[in-house]
């Protein structure tokens, strides 16, 4: 029996903070958990599955203690910012298998108030074998994505103007989100005039650095019927990893190329059926390569696909109506916000940034360093 269509997101909460120097990350986790459980009409005692990431190698033990949870199913997936999308995928499998009943996914970070230089810091978090052949040369996270952008420009003639349009669209969306970190409109010229961080990527091609967090509650569709909110059902999901292989990988072969078609097939959904997408936008190039790899356009056509308002509200495929990481928030690992925004859109509670009559959404999280090694998790969500 398929696991798809049997688990629903029943609670979603995005912490409104973008700067919280007096809070710990754990406090943001706790406040977010309260928000999502309250949204669902459930309490901490109902939780028997716990999912989190970004808390260190055994930090899930400390965090479960801080929240005083006694889960029977635990997953501290660590594949970068996409981990939280993966959590929902894994929670769907666990709930459908009867391994837990109520899954809580939490995220919290104080990256901005700790002045953590996420994209341009130490250039590698660990020194595992591959790092010894990379770290001596100074890769930064933005540099890793920039390598992909440069190669894309070389192969397909993609331009900085096309990438800039993505940032402009995300900022326009953020103007409709009162909680977004940056809301003032920007133009293509503004993006191109901002300083280059790692060519060809400018400052405004890069996501913001904020504090923040969020939480999700998932349970079976049967139980969801008795809860407060309209359930948003997980119809399909898939994940994939890409790395340097044995020294020959095509930089443009991103993980979404594998996870996207599989997730759509599992959900029985076609591209044309989708009303919106929430796509990890660590950098403008992330959106372009992801949409291309997911199959919304042919390889090389991502630049023109993202232009002309197609991915803006009112366009054929609105992407990140909340303003995304490029303008709303990015505390280091943004995957949970992709699921939260898709859930709210499908519930129809997004006010001025609501995608009209949204029934089906695609979520795609990218984690890690796109040009070196990264994860991709695609999930299809639908109104019950």
């Amino acid at each position, binding site marked *: 029996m398929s696991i798809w269509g049997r688990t629903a997101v029943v609670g979603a909460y995005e912490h409104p903070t973008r700067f919280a120097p007096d809070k710990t990350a754990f406090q943001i986790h706790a406040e977010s958990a309260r928000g999502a459980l309250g949204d669902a009409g459930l309490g901490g005692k109902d939780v028997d599955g716990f999912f989190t990431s970004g808390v260190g190698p055994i930090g899930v033990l400390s965090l479960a203690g801080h929240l005083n949870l006694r889960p029977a199913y635990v997953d501290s997936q660590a594949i970068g910012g996409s981990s939280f999308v993966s959590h929902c995928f894994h929670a769907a499998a666990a709930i459908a298998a009867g391994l837990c009943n109520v899954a809580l996914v939490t995220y919290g970070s104080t990256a901005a108030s700790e002045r953590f230089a996420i994209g341009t810091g130490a250039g590698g978090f660990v020194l595992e074998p591959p790092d010894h*052949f990379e770290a*001596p040369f100074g890769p930064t996270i933005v540099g890793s994505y920039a390598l992909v952008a440069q190669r894309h420009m*070389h192969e397909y003639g993609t331009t900085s103007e096309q990438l800039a349009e993505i940032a402009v669209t995300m900022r326009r969306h953020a103007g409709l989100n009162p909680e977004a970190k940056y809301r003032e409109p920007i133009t293509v010229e503004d993006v191109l005039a901002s300083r280059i961080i790692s*060519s060809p990527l400018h400052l405004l091609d890069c996501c913001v650095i904020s504090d923040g967090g969020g939480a999700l509650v998932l349970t079976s569709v049967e139980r969801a019927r008795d809860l407060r909110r309209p359930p948003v059902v997980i119809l399909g999901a898939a994940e994939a990893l890409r790395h340097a292989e044995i020294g020959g990988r095509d930089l443009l072969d991103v993980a979404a190329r594998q996870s996207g078609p599989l997730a759509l097939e599992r959900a029985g959904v076609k591209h044309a059926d989708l009303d919106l997408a929430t796509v990890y936008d660590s950098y403008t190039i992330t959106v372009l390569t992801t949409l291309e790899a997911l199959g919304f356009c042919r390889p090389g056509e991502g630049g023109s696909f993202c232009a002309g308002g197609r991915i803006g509200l009112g366009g054929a495929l609105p992407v990140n109506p909340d303003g995304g990481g490029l303008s709303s928030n990015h505390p280091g690992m943004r995957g949970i916000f992709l699921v939260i925004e898709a859930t709210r859109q499908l519930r129809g509670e997004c006010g001025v940034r609501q995608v009209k009559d949204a029934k089906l959404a695609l979520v795609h999280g990218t984690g890690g360093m796109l040009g*070196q090694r990264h994860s991709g998790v695609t999930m299809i969500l639908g109104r019950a």
Partner: protein
Amino acid sequence: MAEPKPYRKPLPRIDEESRGYWEALARHELYFQRCRDCGTKRFYPRALCTSCLSSATEWVRARGRGTVYSFTVTYQNQAPGFREELPYVLAIVELDEGVRMMTNVVGCAPDAVRVGMPVEVVFEDVTAEITLAKFRPVS
């Protein structure tokens, strides 16, 4: 005369899998691996062939020529050793033998680097044990 500046960038660790690579670089020779059983080339060096799981490995000397597969001119990096050298060129070079490796392109203005540019290896001795393979435009 000024003291040489201490080397502050991350230094690779030499281990059982990678010793042959780093020892060759110290002699100013660039090597990659090939499986003796199935012939699959691999980089970076590993104990086992990922195709057939054999540990029978031969070291193959590269000519040291290749082309820039992709690059980025890095203008911001707070890490010690790099922040003093901005801007620098991070690149992936494809060797003529077909192996792609991360490196720096040196010996030219950062803005002169292009995808597809022919490059040749230069050996940079950074410590008594460690030499890095960097690349410069073919003269």
